[in-house]
């Protein structure tokens, strides 16, 4: 009925106008000052009721008389008045409003909202901000740019391991990482490593629960919504960009430079007749030509043999003195290049974008490299009310890395051996395993060369969108997203058989021989039999979103309603085959083996479907007060069994958000100091199917090493599932405000949030005496809360000079409120002497290590043994603090002067601690600077307990063997020595760019724009004085048990390079 009426009215209006003036159809195309399309403009014939809306491509059509004045407005832009004139096609350029808060933003599930309608914290990072440091991966480019977002590069290599955390941890044992959405499709973090950062138009960060409710369970930890670039109407634009990048170790642990190879060889035990009281003399006895440990006598420059005599009689006799910077020189300077070309263009009804990228990286570990090649195509076409678009990308990446612990091999090499001469072990006889000096650790270059991890990733991903505008107020929309991600890999170990000479005959000649010499190189006892493991994994994701998008006024209310239906399916398969030997050298196929074929397979399928609705509403004439209600009803396969009741696998959750524009409601508030003020609040409850796949079943699997031939052996699983498992719920509260001050030159966004996660599906460690090691159960409560503030200031706006600064601060804390009854803590893992833990009533994860005993008087004196003088280890693991940073501060600034632009971003994180196993290893090898004091000494700041049980400050009891046992057998074992505050300040990125002036560029007649830039990433890192080890961001695991690092992570690096961009 209504449709007819509406048409009648339009027809009548048409008729009315036709009678008064010459009316024509005018087509307009709207762009901003940069030439980017301005979608959804509103065009009104001034003084009339005629208003039309432009489409998403910035095109509008309106009927107007010649003399009519068109008022063209768009959110975020200054409105423009134009005479219609006689032209039938208009090209309109709108200028951006300085206040950017009026932007239309893309929220969850692609729903567009005006900023003022959003009742929760939301951030957006543009391509410009991403590309500042030319980071090889998108995630690293986001570090420090958004409050509440923490990017952890837990391991740096040519294939860095990164994790993305929004607003801290809320799940104790489940996933805490943010959801990654690319062009509306829910994907997995694996794709983040593969996407070309230059293809990204913007990244929206939906921090809280409300923002992500519509993504269902997957969005519980917030979401990174990535929008890729889209072509714009206009002539073909071709861009070429090249970046060349260098990577260098930014800092290394502190190494000692005084002592060379040696270990505890001194033949007398303290108290024996003949025991030499001089530590210097004992050190001389401890020197060995072939030692990996560095507890020999002090460097004196004398010529000494390294290792043993080779089979041809040759000897490596070199000065016994420290080679400056040898550890640093053992690594390479990494070089990488990135080349890319993009094409974009479009016409009235279609757009297209196409890009190619190639990136080659050579890492700091010699021989480690990666290569990524990708293409992306995105295109759209409109046919009247129907618009379609697709977006597809295909990326191949190849990685070739070492599987050896190169770093550990380096620190097991004494600093008088010049490793730079040892790189070519195939031809250099002193570098070859048959002649290499070190009896215990092989040549690092040999180890890294024979242990290789080779793998290839291929990712194909596509989205297919259809929008049908059924009526002016209703669009039907469907998006089908599909992804296939595969990895094929081969890990291989080269075969090496030692010569008989190396095994049995290599000796040490006088004068370097010692009383306990024996012929043969110790490590030659075990030949390297080689091995190969071949594997492939594939992952298929299908995600369909069907939506009805409605915009309609009902009575007093202006409403926008989206109803959606979502289907998600993920399937994975992995297969591996392996052989633990190689028969014919250099042929890495599992058929080239002795013994049985090893291997296995793993398959998973998970499915979800859900209905959701999102309603934004406000009273007419009161559009300063907006209410947003969301709800979703999900069903998940992860909790499904035919025998279970629907309430165990279907779940409803919902939320509401309110935003209030105070300056619109009460215009008196507006002044030149306060331009805009918005207050917002939200509440919501989110459901989550955070359970390990197939977690409902107790499983029975093959016992270790079974089957032996035909002999089958099975074992009862160790994780006992509770029968009543159901999805968990997280309740979030958030309040915040956005303010523009001083003529919109200062923008402030503040929020406070709290999340209560109740009834988590927790893998609880239960005592093994129950027969099981873990229980999977809904239990416990975790609170997670924090504050965030983003401040953006336009410091200076002169004719040629623009200077902006911004600060992003976030504070996050959490508390384990409840655990399973009777269980007060459990460990995630780590080492027997250092673990990260969940402890009731505390913040998690918490680091615990063994340590010292301290004097009861609070003086901080450390207990030593009253006889030996060695520090006494308190074997109990004691809490050392939280490993998750509490405070994060980002500070960025950009200065534009004419065609020059300088920008940089700093990040600080702190309030946490870390444990470095690297420190322990370096104490073992004697390479750490802290082991340098090897003279007779009383253990600093110590006390002992005397015969009467009293604490006595130690001024008399010297340690017995400061040249060795103090460090290796005592100090090393006290893990507290390697715990330190984990705060850091990093210069995340720095970029100086110069755009060639337009008139100059135009003269070339080839280019339309050109730009050169110098950039750097992590150029410097400042850490705590006590942190003598490594980058506090590193962790041995990307899981929840963070804060423990080891030699598995190579040293932190800085990167710098230059970049040229041309647009044709």
């Amino acid at each position, binding site marked *: 009925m209504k*449709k007819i009426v509406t048409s009648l009215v339009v027809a009548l209006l048409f008729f009315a106008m036709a009678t008064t003036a010459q009316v024509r159809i005018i087509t307009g195309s709207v762009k901003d000052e940069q030439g980017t399309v301005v979608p959804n403009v509103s065009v009104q014939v001034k003084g009339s009721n005629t208003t039309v809306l432009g489409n998403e491509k910035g095109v509008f059509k309106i009927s107007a008389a010649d003399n009519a004045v068109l008022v063209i407005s768009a959110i975020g832009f200054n409105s423009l008045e134009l005479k219609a004139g006689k032209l039938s096609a208009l090209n309109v350029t709108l200028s951006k409003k300085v206040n950017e808060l009026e932007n239309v933003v893309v929220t969850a599930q692609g729903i567009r909202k005006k900023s003022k309608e959003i009742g929760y914290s939301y951030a957006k990072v543009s391509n410009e901000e991403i590309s500042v440091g030319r980071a090889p991966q998108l995630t690293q480019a986001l570090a420090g740019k958004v409050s509440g977002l923490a990017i952890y590069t837990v391991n740096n290599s040519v294939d860095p391991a990164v994790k993305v955390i929004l607003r801290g941890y809320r799940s104790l044992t489940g996933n805490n990482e943010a959801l990654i959405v690319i062009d509306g499709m829910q994907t997995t973090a694996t794709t983040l490593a593969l996407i070309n950062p230059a293809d990204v138009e913007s990244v929206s960060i939906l921090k809280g629960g409300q923002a992500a409710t519509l993504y269902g369970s997957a969005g519980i930890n917030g979401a990174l919504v990535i929008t890729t670039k889209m072509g714009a109407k206009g002539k073909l634009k071709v861009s070429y960009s090249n970046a060349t990048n260098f990577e260098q170790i930014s800092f290394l642990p502190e190494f000692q430079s005084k002592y060379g190879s040696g270990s505890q060889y001194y033949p007398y035990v303290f108290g024996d007749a003949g025991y030499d009281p001089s530590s210097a003399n004992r050190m001389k006895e401890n020197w060995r030509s072939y030692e990996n440990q560095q507890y020999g006598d002090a460097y004196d420059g004398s010529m000494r043999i390294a290792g043993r005599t080779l089979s041809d009689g040759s000897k490596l006799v070199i000065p016994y003195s420290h080679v400056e910077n040898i550890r640093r020189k053992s690594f390479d300077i990494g070089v990488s290049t990135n080349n890319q070309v993009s094409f974009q263009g479009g016409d009235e009804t279609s757009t297209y974008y196409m890009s190619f990228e190639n990136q080659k990286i050579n890492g700091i570990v010699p021989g480690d490299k990666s290569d990524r090649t990708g293409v992306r195509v995105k295109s759209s076409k409109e046919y009247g009310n129907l618009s379609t678009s697709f977006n597809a990308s295909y990326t191949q990446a190849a990685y070739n890395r070492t599987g050896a612990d190169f770093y550990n091999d380096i620190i097991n090499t004494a600093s008088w051996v010049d490793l730079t001469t040892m790189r070519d072990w195939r031809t250099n006889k002193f570098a070859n395993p048959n002649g290499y000096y070190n009896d215990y650790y092989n040549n690092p270059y040999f180890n890294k060369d024979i242990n290789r991890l080779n793998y290839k990733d291929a990712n194909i991903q596509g989205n297919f969108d259809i929008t049908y505008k059924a009526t002016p107020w209703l669009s039907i929309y469907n998006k089908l997203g599909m992804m296939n991600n595969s990895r094929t890999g081969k890990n291989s170990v080269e075969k090496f058989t030692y010569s008989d000479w190396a095994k049995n005959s290599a000796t040490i000649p006088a004068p370097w021989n010692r009383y306990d010499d024996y012929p043969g190189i110790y490590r030659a006892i075990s030949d390297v*039999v080689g091995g190969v493991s071949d594997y492939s994994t594939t992952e298929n994701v299908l995600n369909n979103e069907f939506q009805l998008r409605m915009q309609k006024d009902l009575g007093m209310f202006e409403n926008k309603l989206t109803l959606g239906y979502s289907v998600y399916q993920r399937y994975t398969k992995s297969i591996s085959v392996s052989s633990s030997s190689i028969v014919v050298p250099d042929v890495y196929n599992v058929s080239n083996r002795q013994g049985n074929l090893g291997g296995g397979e793993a398959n998973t399928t998970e499915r979800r479907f859900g209905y959701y609705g999102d309603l934004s509403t406000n009273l007419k004439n009161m559009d300063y007060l907006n209410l947003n209600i969301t709800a979703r009803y999900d069903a998940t396969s992860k909790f499904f069994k035919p025998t279970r009741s629907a309430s165990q696998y279907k779940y409803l959750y919902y939320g509401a958000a309110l935003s209030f524009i105070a300056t619109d409601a009460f215009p008196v508030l507006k002044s030149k100091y306060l331009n805009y003020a918005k207050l917002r609040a939200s509440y919501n409850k989110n459901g989550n199917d955070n359970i390990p796949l197939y977690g409902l079943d107790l499983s029975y699997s093959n016992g270790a090493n079974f089957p032996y031939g035909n002999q089958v052996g099975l074992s009862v699983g160790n994780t006992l599932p509770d029968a009543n498992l159901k999805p968990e719920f997280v309740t979030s509260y958030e309040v915040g405000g956005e303010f523009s001050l001083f003529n919109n030159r200062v923008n402030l966004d503040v929020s406070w949030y709290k999340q209560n996660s109740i009834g988590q599906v927790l893998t609880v460690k239960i005592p093994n005496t129950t027969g*099981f090691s873990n229980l999977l159960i809904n239990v416990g409560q975790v609170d997670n809360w924090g504050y965030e503030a983003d401040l953006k200031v336009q410091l200076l706006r002169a004719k040629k000079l623009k200077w902006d600064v911004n600060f992003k601060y976030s504070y996050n804390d959490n508390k384990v409120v409840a655990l399973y009854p009777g269980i007060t803590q459990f460990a995630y893992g780590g080492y027997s002497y250092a673990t990260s833990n969940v402890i009731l009533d505390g913040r998690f994860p918490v680091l615990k290590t063994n340590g010292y005993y301290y004097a009861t008087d609070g003086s901080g004196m450390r207990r030593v043994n009253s006889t030996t003088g060695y520090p006494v280890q308190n*074997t109990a693991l004691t809490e050392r603090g939280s490993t998750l940073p509490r405070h994060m501060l980002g500070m960025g600034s950009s200065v534009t002067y004419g065609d020059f632009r300088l920008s940089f971003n700093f990040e600080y994180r702190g309030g946490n601690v870390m444990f470095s196993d690297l420190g322990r290893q370096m104490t073992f090898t004697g390479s750490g600077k802290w082991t340098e004091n090897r003279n007779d000494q009383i253990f600093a700041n110590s006390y002992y307990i005397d015969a009467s049980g009293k604490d006595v400050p130690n001024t008399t009891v010297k340690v017995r063997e400061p040249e060795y046992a103090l460090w290796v057998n005592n100090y090393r074992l006290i893990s507290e020595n390697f715990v330190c505050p984990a705060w850091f300040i990093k210069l995340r990125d720095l970029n100086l760019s110069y755009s060639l002036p337009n008139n100059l560029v135009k003269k070339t007649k080839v280019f339309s724009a050109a730009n050169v830039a110098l950039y750097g990433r992590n150029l410097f890192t400042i850490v705590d004085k006590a942190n003598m080890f490594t980058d506090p961001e590193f962790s041995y695991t990307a899981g929840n048990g963070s804060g423990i690092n080891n030699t598995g992570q190579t040293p932190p690096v800085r990167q710098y390079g230059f970049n040229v961009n041309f647009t044709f």
Partner: protein
Amino acid sequence: MKLKYLYIGVIMFLVGSGCKKEFLNVNTNPNALPTATPAYVIANALNTTAANMVSPNETGMYWSGHWSQSNGYIISTTLFQYQFTNGDFNYWDNTYDNLYDYKFVIENAAAYNQKYLKGPAKVMMAYNFQKLVDLYGNIPFSDALKGVGSLAPKFDDQKAVYEGLITLLDSAILDLKSNAFEGTYASSDIIFKGSASNWVKFANSLKMRILMHQSRISGRDAYITGEINKIVAEGSGFITGADVGANPGYVASAGQINPVYNTWGYNENGARSATNNFPRITDFTVKALLATNDTFRLKRFVYAPGNENPAVPGVSLNPEIAANYVGVPFGSSAGYPVPATCAIGPCLLIKGVFNKPLIIMTAAEVQFCLAEAKQRYPTVGLTGTAQSYYEEGVKQSYRVLGADVTKVPALLTSGLQDADFVASTNKLNAIAYQKWLAVSYFTGLEAWTEYRKNNYPATPQSKNVVGTSRPLRLFYPGTELGSNGANVNAQGTIDPLATRLFWDVD
């Protein structure tokens, strides 16, 4: 307008109705089995029990004074300075995990018509609990292995556990006698291949082990003699002439060879394991053997310095003359490099012999248990004499080591202390010493238990330790403390160097 909403409703319904319950029915684990039969579970359980012994036996070899380490490694501060924590030596978790598999067998045997597996499962439960008591003292026993039924199992007094094990073995023997093995599933029994009578003998032997551990507790005689007489009355006897060992059918493939051979000897391709460099015979043991002219066993225990001849497996590269054998003073951190000292010998490691059963109890041990029983309680109904059991024990020790059994009489009549039973002035010491030797290498944990119980032979303190304290037990593992804290703490403060087990009277 109403129609429009109807349309919307219809569209949503149509789209939404695509997903029914069936769509979600993909939650059956495709990677693991949903259930298992007891016959398959017990095969793995038996193999796991044996494999779980490798590490505690190693520790036992050090702390009983048989082994030290070569100086190719830095000194192990946990083993030779006794600086260990509740994160070290966790023999607890894997044992309880293994125990639950036996529980599964016992509980499901009837349902699968495999009742004959109940008896062996109970015997093995007793074997594992006995190990746990000897390592940790009080342990969860009656309240253990109940899953959600008891999530914080209470600890039982160690003496009560020991008594409970005797009862458990009684019940095992009843089961074994009333349920004959079914031939098809005999292969699941990777220890006795379905011989119920051997299982009963093993049960009796295990009872003797448990009873004789308690022999030095005052006031315990009546209980012990009563139980021994019950064993005699039962009448099946003990394992004799052969040892109890598990063999799942080792094959020359990664992870599928005898784990002792793999850990200390060679891998499946014949490449020597790097850990072959670590354990070394102590100079105490070398001297003790030389003192009784017992070079036959010395040559089986270890290879002469220079190790095994790769061309002649089982034989030392260098001449096997007594003067060549060099032991490491216990806990020495310097002066004893790898090639200059004696590595584990042909009793455990012969290159290429990767498929011997993994022994979990030797026949010799039983004989020495009987010898001690008869020596201490002459009235018990055992038919032999202390001397006859003792001498048979030495013979069985020679046999299992692969030494020449014909040389035994010379040792037994040598007139030397602790070798010749008749000539030995302290018979119990002679039994203790010979048992300490006989159980070594195969069941090192028993060697440590014997040492803790008898304090004989008087092996020297570690050169890396100040003072006289030695490890007497282990800490409760951190994993148990973290999840069952109240019950662990109820056991009081544990000092592994001072807190004695109930059978360790001095």
